[in-house]
């Protein structure tokens, strides 16, 4: 039995604090841009910022960079399934012509 090195990897405190500052700045940015008239870009910017925030939380707070590849794969899978669920549902709703019932 070869016990591997068990000493845990320690992330510097500064990195956590920088990520927190980045997350709060992104929050301010999404709140600020939501007030500007950008049309559909409001939604795109807001979702984009949410994705960046999620990646920051996953890579630094959830230690995905230190995780094994299998763990990374499984952690990505949930999001992949979600993307499939939403995309395929939208295929249906965006391509279906509404046919009103005779009494409508």
């Amino acid at each position: 039995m070869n016990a591997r090195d068990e000493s845990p990897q320690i992330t510097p405190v500064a990195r956590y604090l920088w990520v927190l500052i980045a997350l709060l700045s992104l929050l301010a940015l999404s709140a600020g841009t939501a007030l500007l008239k950008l049309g559909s870009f409001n939604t795109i910017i807001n979702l984009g910022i949410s994705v960046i925030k999620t990646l920051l939380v996953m890579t630094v707070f959830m230690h995905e960079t230190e995780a094994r590849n299998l763990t990374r794969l499984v952690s990505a899978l949930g999001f992949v399934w979600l993307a499939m669920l939403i995309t395929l549902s939208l295929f249906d709703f965006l391509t279906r012509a509404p046919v009103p019932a005779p009494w409508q």
Partner: protein
Amino acid sequence: MNASAGDVPRDPSYDSVEEQYDDATQQREAATLGMWVFLATEILFFGVLFASYTICRVLYPEGFAAASRHTDMLLGTIETAVLLISSSSIALAVRAIKLDQRGRAAVMMAGTAVLGLSFLVMHGFEYYTEYTEHLIPGIDFAQSGPHAHAVELFFCLYYFITGFHSLHVMVGVTMIGVLAIRVVRGAFGSRRYTTLELTALYWHLVDIVWIFVYPMVYLVGRSG
């Protein structure tokens, strides 16, 4: 849980290695993998609600913008900030326990629990405001106008999404509170922190869910 092998005496400062694992690292990696499988099911649990929201918003863009303007953007932004800060504090707690700094870890965990509780209190105030504004679909809903039906749909999804999220926050606060007490009693240390690390993963996922809830609920139609 019994140390049936008997060849290694159980040391409370170590994670006991079950017989199917080579060493503590492999056991911890397996536990992390298992936690991520659970988190994937959580993503899909909220994902169904997010998918419903997406479809309804595509069908009723103006109604959803009108409904979103009924929510409290300032309170929602503060709640988001509170959850983001709580995520970093639980990350710092896990770091502290890996360095055997039990006191600091307990303080950071207590801070996380308090932030989680303050999130719940703020959300309670939001629910109360919506109650006084008659925005409870099916029970007390007094909206009229061309978008009334879409506003009702939005608030149905709003209560399901934020309600289940708050339930997750409650579970997280309870777990973190209990673990903070166990940290003070010396149950965890630099060789025994898997439970803490997995609870932190859960808390971060609750945070990630809210990162998407925030623009979906509070930021629609704010520029109009």
